[in-house]
């Protein structure tokens, strides 16, 4: 019973947060609401006894991805007025499409909402979620896991291909050359005849 109350509480917070992500005017606020949505999603996962996934969601998304995201959002100069251009013009179509999808989902899922299977039963104390996940990841799904590694490699390659730019006009230090420098490179002794006043 207590868990059900918790579930509805977290679910409600998550929905409101997710809604605010797309309605918030300030992009920084939107990012913060996304953090809140992730946080409550992770709480729901904890209720489902998926501890590892819950912690991973917090560490990876809230801890790393969203922080980077906030940096990017703060660095960009986003013109809200330009982003909102055409909002009212496209709104009727968007409401129509969204509404149709909502009704469809409602029709399909209605019968199931109250017929959800009971939550997972409690496991003994020595049961390790992480170990179980690791076991299937490295045995049953090893192939998919390796493809995921290749996808990450491609992400690195394309990020470098798209952003690495060797500009000729940037001034930068080359420590190796600084260390190797000799006196003769910097000081030039010029012989001059002595002058009288």
């Amino acid at each position: 019973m207590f868990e059900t109350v918790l579930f509805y509480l977290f679910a409600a917070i998550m929905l409101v947060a997710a809604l605010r992500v797309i309605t918030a005017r300030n992009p920084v606020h939107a990012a913060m609401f996304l953090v809140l949505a992730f946080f409550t999603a992770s709480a729901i996962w904890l209720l489902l006894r998926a501890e590892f996934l819950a912690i991973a969601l917090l560490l990876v998304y809230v801890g790393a991805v969203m922080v980077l995201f906030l940096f990017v959002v703060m660095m960009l100069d986003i013109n809200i007025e330009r982003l909102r251009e055409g909002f009212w013009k496209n709104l009727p179509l968007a409401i129509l499409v969204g509404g149709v999808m909502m009704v469809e989902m409602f029709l399909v899922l209605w019968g199931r909402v109250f017929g959800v299977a009971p939550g997972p039963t409690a496991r003994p104390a020595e049961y390790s979620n992480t170990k179980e996940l690791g076991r299937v990841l490295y045995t049953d799904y090893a192939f998919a896991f390796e493809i995921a590694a290749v996808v990450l490699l491609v992400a690195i390659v394309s990020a470098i291909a798209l952003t690495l730019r060797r500009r000729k006009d940037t001034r930068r230090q080359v420590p190796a050359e600084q260390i190797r420098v000799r006196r003769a490179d910097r000081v030039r002794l010029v012989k001059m005849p002595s002058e009288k006043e």
Partner: protein
Amino acid sequence: MLPATLSPAAIALLDHLPALPEVLLLAGTCALMIVDLFVKSERRDATFALAYAILAGCALATLFALTLAGFDKYYLFNKLFVADLMSHLLKLAAYIAVALALAYSRRYLYDRGLLKGEFISLLLFALLGMMIMMSANSFLTLYMGLELLSLCLYSLVALNRDSAVSTEAAMKYFVLGALASGMLLYGMSMIYGASGTLNIGEVSRQVGNLSANASERTILVFGLVFMIAGVAFKLGAAPFHMWVPDVYQGAPTAITLVIGSAPKLAAFAMAIRLLVNGLLDMAVDWQQMLVVLSIASMAIGNITAIAQTNIKRMLAYSTIAHMGFMLLGLLSGVVDGNWLNKDDAYSAAMFYTVVYVLMSLGAFGMLVHLSGRGYECERLEDLKGLNRRSPWHAFIMLILMFSLAGVPPTAGFYAKLSVIYAAVAAGQIWLAVVAVLLSLVGAFYYLRVVKLMYFDEPAGDAQAIPDDRMPRMLLSANGLALLALGIMPQPLMSLCFAAIKGL
């Protein structure tokens, strides 16, 4: 041939032989990225040689696996991966398409300073993604392969980052592609929810039992709608076609060549794996959805293409129309519970896809070939009087346009004939009539290109055609292959038939 006793390690290696092409490609591409760092030449000769060697090695490995396995199916990696005749054949076609794309685009990219090692490695990684999709036997591997392919394509489109048009095209492609992946994933998760498995063979078994139950069936149909939307997006079928014209026009022509060719093979494989291998018992439902997609694609593609003045954009709309024709084959398999027509119809669709990839390679390859340093051949006027300037180029372009329009004796004609025949055999006469009428509409804009080439004077600012022997020979072979396939379609058709039979 083999020694009588093998160590367990050797047996394990032999067991994984069908995946040898993927292993070779991945290892080779990783090696290529390192080798490319040491290549000093601006023309990247060594990198190209290595890339061709990798492709040849993959082709040999696939042929080897094919001769060893014959018509048998092999499941690997805990049934995440399947090696059957269709996957082998589509992989061979994809190697040819990628090798041709490399050869055609080399000078174009060099002239524009885009010839970097990343182009080649991303292209090979994209090929790996396609191969994984072709051999996918699980929603999971299918999705991972799709993401690998799409990620490579997004960054290839953006490769020319100083061009605002390319960047915009890449942005659109990325956002819409991510949306489509999301829809596909949502559909997959619904079907997973109903069937309790990701394995495509297992899904097919479960769906057979579940589709009798009305409430389970609604969920399956619901998932199916989203899945079809995702597949249609990747194919570029209307009404999920909005990205196609912008991306085709915005990307550098050499990259358009890449996007418009081999990935269509992978998208076809995805449709077959999901719909035929996985959800054939739901054919009643997806057949109707495909009818809508097919007619919309043929109509929007063919009619909008007439109004275009940019050839790349025109060919983009022609792609949409061709995908509509391909879907005509896919939807004629099972009509009103009649399964007899299944193999003929799907093999017609496969034939259509392979021939379309050859035509698209040729057409975009020709545009790439005609573009010189600092000059893009992309307006219709640029082809004016091509016959005066070079009769041979005009002749090859003529074959390509005739084939795209479906004029006999080219392969395009036979491909159209076979899908329309499949529709007629399934009793969908009205659909076949609509297809014929719309292909007549389409013939207009292909023949307009022919008219411009043969009956118009060259424009005053017409540029000299770059002299480039290797791509010219390959382009000629590509064009003549379409002619040869049109006269003798039977070998390829029977291969496609065997591939579909072996599913």
